[in-house]
């Protein structure tokens, strides 16, 4: 039903298809609210897929329920808009069934951290090679404005008129608690970092969780302003890059240093801190202690919010190990028909 327009590129005599972002756009009309952060995320995903040059027909985008979960309809790939909270379990089935597919989950803070919390943590624990885009707007949008599992304590909403009396989940903490091998973070409007992070997420073998700080223009407008606003963004965010110094600020004049057991944001030159003292990011170290500290940095503690790839470590993936196990068993067992298998079972007798 859908055609793909590609450029044929000729490299050293070998022609191959180079997909363009528009090849991943479905003809379906988009129904998000004007100004919603989801538009930017959709564009970034299409750009990332084009950069990865993965075939649209080898891509499956799975979602649950919520505003974020409408995303598959807008992708010219295979897509599945499922039921509330179950996207990562469905995606597990898709990926295990066919490990050659590029599988993406579009989900939200309500979908994955409340009703689908169990599937979220177990998918991460199994390390199924799928990419989870966790749209975090700290609100229930599609049901019109209730607090979510990521809303701050005291948050006033339609279902918490006097403020909530519960603490929020921090998605990174949950991911690491489930032994996550990849955690990245992006701002909906920050296209460059978001595309880069999505590309890295796709390249990582295992469950990649990308928390996308997304603005709900109707029910929670400006919730991420402290970090997304042009005026504060440079001072309030830091984009982490593998092997590079953790520098931030308008002129990279600030850095993250280790202060005893804690991280500290400093201005280079002040209090005797030099460039030498600034930490170098290592997303690939197995120990997740510093990754967690980086992921939990918050403006309320005078720290910038970390963006980019915070953790990315190698570990066996579920679906490959499953395939390997099958291959091992089949190597030891002769290939036979089902009837022959039954005839080989213990306790078979013949009536002549």
């Amino acid at each position, binding site marked *: 039903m859908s055609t793909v327009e590609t450029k044929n590129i000729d490299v050293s005599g070998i022609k191959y298809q180079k997909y363009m972002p528009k090849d991943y756009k479905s003809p379906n009309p988009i129904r998000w609210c004007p100004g919603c952060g989801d538009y930017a995320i959709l564009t970034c995903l299409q750009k990332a897929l084009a950069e990865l040059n993965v075939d649209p027909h080898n891509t499956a985008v799975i979602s649950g329920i919520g505003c974020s979960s409408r995303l598959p309809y807008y992708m010219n790939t295979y897509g599945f808009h499922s*039921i509330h909270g179950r996207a990562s379990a469905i995606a597990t089935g898709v990926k295990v069934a066919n490990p050659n*597919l590029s599988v993406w989950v579009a989900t939200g803070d309500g979908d994955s951290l409340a009703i689908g919390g169990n599937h979220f943590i177990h998918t991460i624990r199994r390390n199924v090679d799928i990419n989870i885009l966790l749209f975090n707007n700290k609100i229930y949008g599609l049901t019109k404005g209730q607090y979510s599992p990521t809303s701050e304590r005291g948050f006033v909403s339609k279902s918490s008129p006097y403020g909530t009396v519960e603490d929020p989940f921090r998605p990174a903490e949950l991911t690491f608690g489930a032994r996550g091998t990849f955690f990245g973070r992006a701002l909906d409007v920050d296209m460059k970092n978001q595309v880069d992070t999505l590309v890295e997420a796709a390249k990582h073998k295992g469950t990649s969780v990308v928390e996308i700080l997304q603005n709900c223009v109707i029910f929670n407008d400006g919730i991420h302003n402290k970090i997304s606003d042009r005026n504060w963004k440079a001072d309030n965010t830091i984009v982490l890059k593998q092997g590079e110094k953790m520098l931030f600020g308008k002129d990279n004049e600030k850095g993250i240093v280790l202060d005893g057991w804690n991280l500290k944001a400093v201005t280079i030159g002040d209090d005797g801190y030099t460039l030498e003292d600034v930490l170098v990011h290592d997303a690939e170290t197995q120990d997740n202690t510093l990754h967690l500290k980086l992921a939990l940095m918050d403006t309320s503690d005078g720290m910038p919010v970390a963006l980019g790839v915070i953790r990315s470590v190698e570990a066996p993936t579920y679906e490959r190990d499953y395939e390997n196990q099958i291959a091992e068993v089949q190597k030891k067992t002769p290939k036979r028909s089902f009837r022959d298998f039954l005839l080989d079972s213990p306790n078979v*007798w013949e009536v002549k």
Partner: protein
Amino acid sequence: MSTNRVVTDIKQVTVRFSGDSGDGMQLSGTLFSTLSAIFGNEISTFPDFPAEIRAPQGSLHGVSGFQVRIGAKDVYNSGDKTDVLVAMNPSALKVNAQHLKKGSIVIYDNDSFKKRDLDKAKFETEDPFKELNLNHIQAIGVDITSLTKASLENSGLENKDILRSKNMFALGIVCWLFNRPLEIADQLLEQKFGKKPKLVEANIKALTDGYNYGDNIQLTATTYKIDVVECGKGFYMDVNGNTATAYGLVAAAEKAGVQLFLGSYPITPATDILHELTKRKDFGVKALQMEDEIAGITSAIGASFAGCLAATSTSGPGLSLKSEALGLAVMTELPLVVIDVQRSGPSTGMPTKSEQTDLRQALYGRNGESPLVVLAATSPTDCFDSAFEASKIALEHMTPVILLTDGYIANGSAAWRIPEMEDYPEINPPYVEKYYKGNAEDWKPFLRNEETDVRYWGIPGTPEYMHRVGGLEKDRFTGVISSNPENHQFMIDTRQNKIERIADFIPEQKVMGDEDADTLIVGWGGTYGHLLETALHLQDSGKKVAFTQFRHILPLPKNTHDLLKGYKKVIVAEQNSGQFAAYLSAKFQDLSNIRKFNRIEGQPFKVSELAREFTKIMEEE
């Protein structure tokens, strides 16, 4: 071995091994039934065990039993009452006393019928037999524990392992009683404990000593021989319903040329399906133990979307959790086999006990108008055919199919003639690239085959057929979200028609018995064996009855209405409060001949009771 003893020929016998849940009674029973089947008898087994893994020793609620009925022919169920009871402790005697036939033999372990054992079973006197009014039985006390100890004194086994071989000594006695050849039992033990030669040796010794003990002291005045009747030529094995269900899925996947995927979560009494399929990596089966029931079914739906024969196995409480996802499979029109091994409910109910109380849940347990196919397997071996057929319907008609089995047939076993797979029909899923005749760019995900109303299956990885499916109502062709009123009505009707049209692809309902019968006995699913025997019994006693057992519940076979209206009375017998009867009455509102018989005790039907109650209903004005 002595030869000058009385051997009586009998047609059938029902034996129950009973003891603590740690006494190995399930093993004794399984071995006895398997060796009898190999010997050439028909068998039907009924493992009846508590939900507790190891209940307090000697207690009434910890009694675990394994009943097997063996015979030359016409063994349709595991039997109402027992001819021989092996009671390893007083609680086993007490629990099973009501099921003893007059003149039955009770072999009990003297060593565990002491004062404190009797106390545990809450006996008030020192003569449990008298206390239970068991006057017409032959009670035979054997020092099973001490004889086993003596037998294995030099085995090199630890005391606790020696004591665990009591069940083999008891089995030896039963083998002697029924003239079973020990060679088969020895082979079975070698297969069972093959990796532990010491255990094989000890078990065989205890078994042999038990046999010889019976023979040497001529434990009973007579022993018994059960005729072997020629059955059809071929290879046989004994199989329980859960294994047969798993095999049916494997066979269907092989036939269809697709990958088999199972998403499941452990639940009694369905877990053995998961166990069996995780072993079947030799067939490339992907069987996943997921984090919960919902993930079990949703991972299967994902696998189905990706082109597998996908299944999920569960029992009633698990089916409740899967309801929402089942609706998603209905809405996205994806193939899916859901196996519900029914157990006693509501809620957690009696996990190890069987009943047929999930029929309504299977038919109606979803939000919205949510039609799907419901099948019910009728016996342990029919689980194979039913699982195969459920898979075929799911794959060819792009629909979820619920296959109802139950704890009785799932754990019970019977001899199964290993099938020739050429005898089974082809399975042709409606792959879009194979069956859709138009151009790819004109294709829409909800275009249908006009004859069947089935949409085409476009599987991720197939170029040019990228599309989106989901739980929202969709445009009748494009699959784009739609809340257009006429479109919704159209889709509701189409989803319903698609299921109803499956009636064109299933066989007509057949009836056993007199054409001019006044009364039709109707059952569905796992009660087949008991109802068949009851019908035969009533026919033998001159009653004009016919009998039919339904495997196809939704849709019903096309001749169902004509068939039911042809009888003065239709007795629908179920292990629920009348769910199938109500379904039939609602479907065929002109029928006024439907009567009900219902029994929900978590136990199999009893033929004697059925015969009595059906006669009463037949005699009513």
